């Protein structure tokens, strides 16, 4: 059964049950966290320098001079759009590819269905796509976000469904783990910086806190480390 998000008559708990079961089945009850940083169009990085995952968004590549340049600057992951123009090339370069799927609380179910169909087609066309990253457009609503994550899981049962904590925050981000998500990424560090100066409003998570979010959602926490290693905690 394909679940559709954004249809208010759907049973939230049925969606959650199915999506959670699918996520658990896909990754044997494990869920993942990864420290991430982002390459900006001007070549600067945002996020902890020691981050395992160094992402570049597809729409930043033109300003940077292309995928090969981003690779040289240290990027090892690509956030591609639904068209996935660079997805195949990035997979070929050994980069981790996450497909971004926008969603808006006020979009129609037809629009949402079309986005999910595009996503499914992209994942079929580019086998190396490793994960789906839902991206809220405008303010993320609690229920709608959970339904959309569940729909992504049921659309792409074998891929990682990834929560960007910078976009959703820790609370809503964690709840997505009960609705089909199996991975969180964000500014995750070994130790919390003192909340002073540039860190005064930092919401960075420590590794222990990230692991707690996964464990409290019923998963075995695993940390993605450099060179594709995964440490079970």
């Amino acid at each position, binding site marked *: 059964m394909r679940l559709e998000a954004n249809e208010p008559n759907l049973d*939230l*708990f049925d969606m959650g049950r199915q999506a959670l079961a699918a996520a658990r089945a896909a990754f044997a009850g494990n869920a993942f966290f990864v420290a991430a940083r982002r390459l900006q169009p001007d070549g600067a990085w945002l996020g902890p320098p020691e981050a395992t995952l160094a992402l570049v968004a597809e729409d930043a590549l033109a300003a940077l001079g292309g995928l090969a340049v981003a690779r040289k600057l240290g990027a090892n992951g690509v956030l591609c759009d639904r068209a996935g123009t660079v997805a195949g090339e990035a997979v070929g370069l050994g980069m981790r590819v996450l497909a971004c799927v926008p969603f808006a609380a006020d979009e129609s179910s037809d629009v949402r269905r079309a986005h999910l169909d595009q996503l499914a087609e992209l994942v079929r066309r580019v086998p190396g796509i490793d994960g789906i990253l839902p991206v809220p457009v405008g303010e993320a*609503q609690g*229920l709608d976000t*959970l339904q959309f994550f569940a729909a992504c899981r049921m659309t792409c049962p074998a891929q990682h469904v990834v929560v960007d904590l910078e976009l959703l925050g820790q*609370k809503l981000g*964690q*709840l997505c783990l009960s609705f089909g998500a199996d991975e969180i990424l964000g500014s995750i560090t070994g130790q919390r910086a003192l909340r002073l100066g540039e860190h005064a409003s930092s919401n960075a998570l420590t590794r222990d806190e990230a692991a707690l*979010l996964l464990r409290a*959602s019923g998963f075995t926490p695993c940390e993605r480390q450099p060179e594709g290693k995964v440490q079970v905690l």
Partner: protein
Amino acid sequence: MSLSAIASKVRAGVPLSQADGLALYQHPNLMEVGALANDVRERLHGDRTYFNRNLHINPTNVCVASCKLCSFSRRRADAEGAFVLDVEQAVDKLRARLAAGDRVTEVHIVGGLHDGLPFDYFTGLLSSLKAAAPGISLKAFSAVEIFFFHHLYGMSIEDILRRLQSAGLDSLPGGGAEILSSRVRKAICPNKCEADEWLEVHRTAHRLGIKSNCTMLFGTVETLEDRVDHLLLLRAQQAESAGFMAFIPLPFHPENNALGDRPAPTAAEILRTVAVSRLLLHNVPHIKAYWVSLGLATAQTALWFGADDFDGTVSEEKIYHQAGSLSPQALASGEIARLVRAAGRVPVERDTLYGHVAQAGGEVS
């Protein structure tokens, strides 16, 4: 106790035991616990989700209690950031909201335990607010404050409540319960009234016809057993005096206080506590998802895990924001209605006692 056995008890209207409460807390699947709580919520309230138009006024943050969990208080009146509103300043806050066309129906008043203010200050505050807006409902002074007044001014709890009632008090907020356990209170708020004293204030209020709310602050040093026992104490009190309108679960916020090395409860833990409270407190009509404390998205989701009340428009909330809450300072009533609808529920504007408030067009929002 299995979840299916607990579900059978819930459907048969049999009150759940301490063992049931612990089993709900320890059940591996949050979704199943949430679904059961949602059944109860929908049986009681359907899709209705209540909210009100309220104004928070904190008369003072000067407080002798020095609780480790608090980010709001100042020990001394001359400390940096300490304040005492004079009565006219407090009334001006209400007048400003009314002048802006906001049809506020309730003023929520809580403050520190200031040992330098006369009792007349508090009765004057109430009577002046009532004079400024005779139809307004005054929900004022937690049981901790009432018990402090009883000690400070040498009057019985009943006399304190009667005099406040005469000045305009309509109901009591539910704060200060924290965890109703001597061990926990010694650890986090040793100078607040004891558990039985907190309950005694509410029992007396209910006897005088003053409705109240009840709360639980969770995520500090308490155990799951402490939480369940707390809920069972509230349930027993409600069975005796029947004056609690709503239960409000309050997750601990760790910023700017002496317990700040502890992680805040996760969203999953918050939702589970909302669900467990709905299931254990079968005789308390409403469970509140206090958006100021939970955050908007978690509060929206809580409406499917047992909660049926989103609280109010608030404005001027200080206590949770000084403890690190990232939620907005206020929400317009239309914004609350939009958030509730976006969560798949039907917003209903209420007054303090959960009467429906008719809108301009004669409809309930």
